[in-house]
């Protein structure tokens, strides 16, 4: 039995151990989970070091100041050192600089990507939905979008009794938007299940069928 078959048997056993959770929380399930978590953490550490740090240091720091990328290469190193100050409560303020930098850059990239890649395209797509050939879809898309946004509206009117209530149109639109959300989440959930089933069938086809005689 070669190494691939050994890995296949190990994978099959670990899969059964994970599926044992159907009978309840048990030691085999926890053992398999702990193995996967530990292996994933170790793998990420190794990948981060071998695939990120070492190439980066080779690219920027090796050669010192003679390396033209040394200063740029020191920036992520400096930010990383600042993040280490977060370990100490007394010096955590210095780590805030690294956090601010990371969050700032990440937020900026995400916001710009969301606005440019999601909101504007979606708005443009909805607007374009109202075509003579696609009136119904466009209407449904428009109503669904508006009602879904109204559903996340938390504005209301305070009644004399002190109760805060939304106007009836808003409540109705929110109710319709809630319906769209339910359908969307249901569909997403169904797709997740379908994806899982596909994965399971893939395991059967790719892992189990080759093990059958003549497979």
């Amino acid at each position: 039995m070669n190494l691939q078959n050994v890995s296949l048997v190990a994978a099959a056993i670990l899969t059964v151990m994970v599926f044992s959770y159907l009978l309840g929380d048990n030691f085999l399930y926890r053992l398999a989970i702990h193995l996967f978590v530990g292996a994933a953490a170790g793998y990420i550490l190794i990948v981060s070091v071998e695939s990120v740090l070492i190439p980066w240091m080779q690219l920027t720091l090796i050669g010192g100041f003679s390396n033209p990328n040394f200063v740029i290469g020191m920036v992520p190193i400096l930010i990383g050192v600042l993040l280490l100050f977060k370990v100490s409560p007394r010096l955590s303020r210095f780590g805030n600089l690294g956090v601010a930098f990371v969050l700032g850059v990440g937020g900026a990239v995400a916001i710009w990507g969301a606005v440019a890649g999601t909101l504007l395209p979606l708005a443009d797509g909805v607007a374009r939905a109202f075509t003579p050939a696609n009136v119904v879809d466009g209407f449904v898309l428009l109503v669904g979008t508006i009602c879904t946004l109204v559903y996340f509206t938390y504005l209301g009117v305070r009644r004399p009794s002190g109760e805060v209530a939304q106007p009836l149109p808003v409540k109705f639109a929110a109710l319709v938007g809630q319906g769209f959300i339910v359908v969307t989440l249901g569909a997403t959930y169904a797709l997740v299940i379908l994806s899982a089933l596909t994965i399971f069938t893939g395991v059967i086809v790719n892992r189990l069928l080759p093990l059958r005689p003549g497979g």
Partner: protein
Amino acid sequence: MADKRPLFDDEDLPEWLKKAGITFAGKPAPETDSARPEAPRSVLPVSSGGTGALPWVNETSTPEVSIPSGAADQFDFPDWMNAPEAAAPPSEPIASADELPPWMRESPVSPTAPTSTSGVDFDDLPMPDFDNLDWSAPADSNTASAPSMGSTTSGMTAGLPWRQGASDPADEPLGAAESADDGLSWFADQKDEAAAPTFEPPPEPEAPQVPRGLKNLLNKPLPTPEAPRPPAASDPNLTFEQWEQRESQKAAGETADSFAALNVMDAPAASEPDWLSAVTETPNQPVPDWLNADAPGTPALDFDAMFGENAPPLPDAEPLPDWLNAAAPPKPQPPSSGTRVLSDLDLIPDRSETSDSAAPAEIPDWLQQMTPAASSAPIETATTANVDDWLRDFTSEAPTAPVSEPSTPATVASGEVPDWLRDMSPSVPPSTPIPSAAAPDQLDIPDWMRDMAPAASTPIAEPPQALDDWFSDLPQTPEAPAAEPGALPDWLSGVQPGTLSPAPKPAAPQPSRANLDIDLSRPLASSEIDALMNMPISASPAAPEKKPVDSSSTSLDFDLDELLGPLPTTPAAESTSDTSLSRPTFPTARPTPTEPSGPLRKIPTAPKPAPVAPPSGAISTPDLPDFVADLRPTDAPVPLSVGPIRVGVQEVPLAQLTDQLRQLRERAREFKPPEPTQVSTTGPLAEIKDTLAVEPIIVQSSSQPATVATVIAGDLQARRVKIIQNLLELEDDQPAAETTKAKAPASARPKLDRLLITIVLLLALIAPFLTDAINLMGAPGTSSPTAAQAAVFAAMDGIPAGQPVLVAFEYGPTGSGELDDLSRVLLRDLFKKGAKPVIVSTNPSGAMHAEGLLSTFGRSSDELTALNRVDKPLLPRTDYVVLRYLPAGAAGVRSVVNAMYFGGFEAQSSFLTDIEGQASGLSDTDVKRLQGAPAVVLAETADDVRNWAEQFRAPASLSGITPPKIILAAAAAADATAHTYSASLPAVIIGPLVGLRDATVYRTLRQPPAKAADAKALDQRWQSTGLGALVAGLIIFLGMILNLIRALRRRGSGATQGARR
């Protein structure tokens, strides 16, 4: 009866008695001499002051004692007493006054012997009318008998004049009772008969060294010197009033004679000892009239009636000397039946409280039947152990004469009494033992004084001051008893409070009796009587504490307190606060009861314990001399409880305490024991002491509040309330809690619904691989690709050979089952086109999975055959490049885009090395060439789709360049997002290809399997996935229906409950 038992031999009686008619067995003797005979002078050189208790001896009129021959041998007379005996024959009369020493000659003779109760049948005696008694009456009527109370009970009779008149107990009731005229003449006759020794005054150096305390006691003045004047016993029908009237007709000097004894002590004593001279300050006084019983018309006492029938034989009495037997007075005749008797006297129980210590059994029956106080008091006051025999005999023989009975011998009769003094009362041999009224042994006093203690313990009424108060408050109705003089004999009048012996102040200076300046020869006025009454009695300070009276031992038919009225105000609290040590109790001299007509019954055998004034209130400490206060006896052991142990602690006198102990004692008084705390028996604080008491205070508002604020309890408060409730209900709910705990599941049971669903899904997924009978799914439409598929096909077909194509593996091993098929079909097309896949991934495991997938795919013979690269496996960094992991997600994608468009450092950092750390072999040009081919994005999640759809854009700063495109292949889970971005970014996103369905279509259309088994396996997988999705859909639907029904039920029940509320 009395005639049968005469106490006197007629021939032995003195002449003065015979003249007085007290002779011949109680019958009046033939008057031989109507004139008042001169009191027989005794040859006894003893002055009254010397004896103190023997005033009759030191009086000049003291009759000569005739002691029978041989009788003197029975006594141990001192030499000085025996010496005159030889010189003076017994038959000779007592030496005249000339023969007496000067101090003796100057001594008056005032034998105010009590005569009232001696030998009187109390049952037959008339009863006084107490309501009408005049306490301020003249001394010859009522007050004359007053000293009987105090004297008989005090025991300190040394200074009592009426005692002095009958110092010898043997002749006290006799000579004093009937000697109304000639006093002790009978005694002088006795001397002749019995050849009594002639006493000589003891030499001064040999005089008994009377202690100072005794001296003071002896020097105590007497309150009321009047001696009782009983009616003549020979005339029993004579009432007191009649007798009084008769007596009032006599000269005032007769009355004064009765008080002559008061001044006996005032007689100067030239040759007597100092201690004795201090007592004898009274000058000679004439013989009281009561002694002059031979006065015309004065009835003689019937000694037969007094000592006849009612006088029981003396128990344990030693044979009396003949002279004493001869001197025994005849028992008087019982009074008329119509008069009240002394046994009904209710005053006696009042005094009897001091005699409670005497055991009733020790009291003779005849004595118990008689007035307890009058009879037992003088007996009990004498110490049994220390009283001389002669005194015992005296007390037992003359029990019925306590009223005026001088108990001088008792006060001084002890072992320490000198012989000469002891022999002065030799006439009475030891007889009945006298019950002890107290326990003088407890006192820390000299023996000689201890003998006096019982006498001192007699209920001396009160401090003079207190006596004044109550006495002054008495109704001044002196005429009432005077109205019936015959009904109240003198001895009975002695019970009047005015004649009671008030408690003297021992330490106080002796008030001079002469200072009274009272003419005793005339009837005394009320003020004078008060003055006399206020004279302190020489009470022994060492008197033992009066024991609490046992009320259970009495059976009186009436309450004496009610008759006697309230006690005079006595500062009891004041004295009790001074010291806790018990003090001598001086019986309160109560006034005559206000209920004269009350049923005066026979005196019970056991004396009724009269209400006793607080012991400490009778006499305060300042009233007592220091040595008495220091010698205050300790009471019975004070019980001290220390837990279950109970011990008795004997107290010590306060004076013996140290200052420190006294301070501690004062502090201890201030200590207040803490109140017992409540101990709750239930609740969480059960059996815990010293807890705060629950105050059942409920405050209820009287009016409705203006604004009713709703009590809002937060979750935290509610939890705390619940905790408190649980604590309070802990005891009650303990079994329930245990039951609940027992019902708790020991372990989680398997969820059958999950297991059932799992089993159903497994069967649905596995069944297509086992059989084709359940292939419910139709084959994916492979006849014509969809628009998305067609776009992808077109895009793939547009990639030139050798074109590096950026392939993003954004899925890991978990999504490999779904996306590996898409990856393979896409990579197969890429490799067929001769493109060079440059694989990147923002997922660490994606890059690794891609490396493994390509490694497997590149060495698969089937794949290589399909690629027309048999024996040419795909080589990394040559045929494909698996780059390293792109950190920072969207930023990593952005850095790749920047590297594609800008190259430079970012291109180097992202594309320089592959996943194995080796040089990727990509040049900057190869990176920029990536812009010419669409990027293939294999996204497992919606986030991966969004990141690539949003970030994989040409920089905005660059214009005129072709925007990069994305062939989007996503898992079924990211189908919606992929389609959304595909719809919104049609110029950027090609496709999308989603899951197994598009993979199957793509492969069927573009890469049909070469083997039938692969085609069947692909079909089975499709059927399996389709069947599983169908079953899952059904289960979800079924679950939705069930949950909908449950929701409707829940809402219905909620609405019902709301309607009920």
